[in-house]
């Protein structure tokens, strides 16, 4: 099993979630995050005092997926989250040793 973590643009969240649902992903967890990267932030001005906000609002998706589904999931996220403009985000894949469904105690692939 793998944990796929994708940092994407917030307004793409619904589209990505729907695209993932279509290929059978039934669960994921979303976190509001702030990104720092090539995409520039913005400037705010308060009575002439300037504040440069380096961070850009992003959304992070974490999905536990079966080994077999990883590539398809990556591809779907890339497609649905992409706008072609700087700041589209990144996907990170890490190894997942164990999964437990709290309600039933099921583990691993059947718990995803």
């Amino acid at each position, binding site marked *: 099993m793998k944990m796929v973590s994708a940092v994407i643009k917030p307004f793409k969240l619904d589209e990505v979630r729907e695209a993932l649902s279509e290929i059978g992903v039934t669960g994921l967890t979303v976190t509001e995050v702030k990104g720092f990267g090539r995409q520039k932030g913005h400037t705010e*001005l*308060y*009575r*002439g*005092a300037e504040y440069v906000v380096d961070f850009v609002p992003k959304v992070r998706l974490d999905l536990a997926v079966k080994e077999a589904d990883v590539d398809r999931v990556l591809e779907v996220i890339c497609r649905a989250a992409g706008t072609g403009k700087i700041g589209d985000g990144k996907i990170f894949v890490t190894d997942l040793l164990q999964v437990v469904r709290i309600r039933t105690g099921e583990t691993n692939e059947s718990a995803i």
Partner: protein
Amino acid sequence: MFPQIIGATLLCFAPSVFATDTTPLNTGNTAWILTATALVLFMTLPGLALFYGGLVRSKNVLSILVQCFAIASLISLLWLVGFYSLAFSDGGNLQNWLGGSGRIFMAGLTKDSMTGDIPEVVFAAFQMTFAIITPALIIGAFAERMKFAAVLIFSALWTLAVYVPVAHWVWGGGYFFQNGLIDFAGGTVVHITAGVAALVCALVLGQRNGFGKVAMPPHNLTMTITGAGMLWVGWYGFNGGSALAANGSAGMALFVTHIAASAGALAWMACEWIKFGKPSGLGIVTGVIAGLGTITGAAGVVGPAGALVIGLMAGVICFFMTQLIKKTLQIDDSLDVFPVHGVGGILGTFLAGIFCSPDLGIFSGFGYAGEHTSIASQLGIQVMGIVVIGLYTAVLTWVLLKVTALLTSGLRVSADAEREGLDLVAHEERGYDIK
């Protein structure tokens, strides 16, 4: 003679002269001053509290609100105990400089005591709301870093030593009153004193940690703009009520107040649009307050077109002064009290001396005050008022801060406490817990 500010004039000998109770009650005037009293209280609670509260970081928002409420409560009780008496009762031999002791604990004040044709108790309550808002304005200068006990002690001492005598000089029958200083509703008494005190506080307290390096954006501009709206509405009572009657003078004061606020807003907006490329909401409401603070001293004596000029100048000049103080001089008058209220008060007191003139065509006002018969002579006393009251306030504020610092072993909270935020450190509570 300046019958046009008869309202303000009336204040002067109030309790003493009118204690004869011979003027019959005018219920219409009384209704308006009761209402105006509510409007001016509304300016502080919650108007100013919200206006200021939105401008600090969320970890300090309650400290601002608490200070506004605590100062209001404290000054109100002191007003009862003796401040009203010292400001507005007859000072006898010292009348030029201070009121007397006749109304200590409101002694002798009955429901039938009159000030002009309204009950004296209404007049005393109306004036109390002015005494409340003035020290509350100052807290913007030392926001986010002053000890709560120090705030309370300083506010009480300052109101006693600065506000009360200045109110007496200008409105209570004292020196400036005698000499025809025009200050319809508090250009000098409220705004110059608060503004100058704020500047001194900012210099004595020093910058907030991280000032100029760390971002300190307003945490809730919707709160600030809400407060600004309340201040605007409440100011109708502040300036309109200062006529002490429901008549054309009150109406005119209200209308020019509104025009100056609007002009200040648009002027500040234009400055930002030109200089920064975009006009901001904070800028617009700051222009409103600049216009309001500036027209205050002039409200009853200038006409609508004069008010328009005053408001436009207020917007532009206060805008540039804010840049100067904060960016060039790096003074951390945290919520810009001096450049908005202090500069506005000075400007308005000065311009009142010009636009009161009945000889300016469409820009004419309603006449000079006291014995003055020309712009030059009126400006003489106006400038003298500005300088004397400004200097007096500066010196006394400095002294009182030093005294307070002794009493509270320093004015500022520790650096750790400042980082943590005053809400938790001083009041053990948080502004928001929104899920």
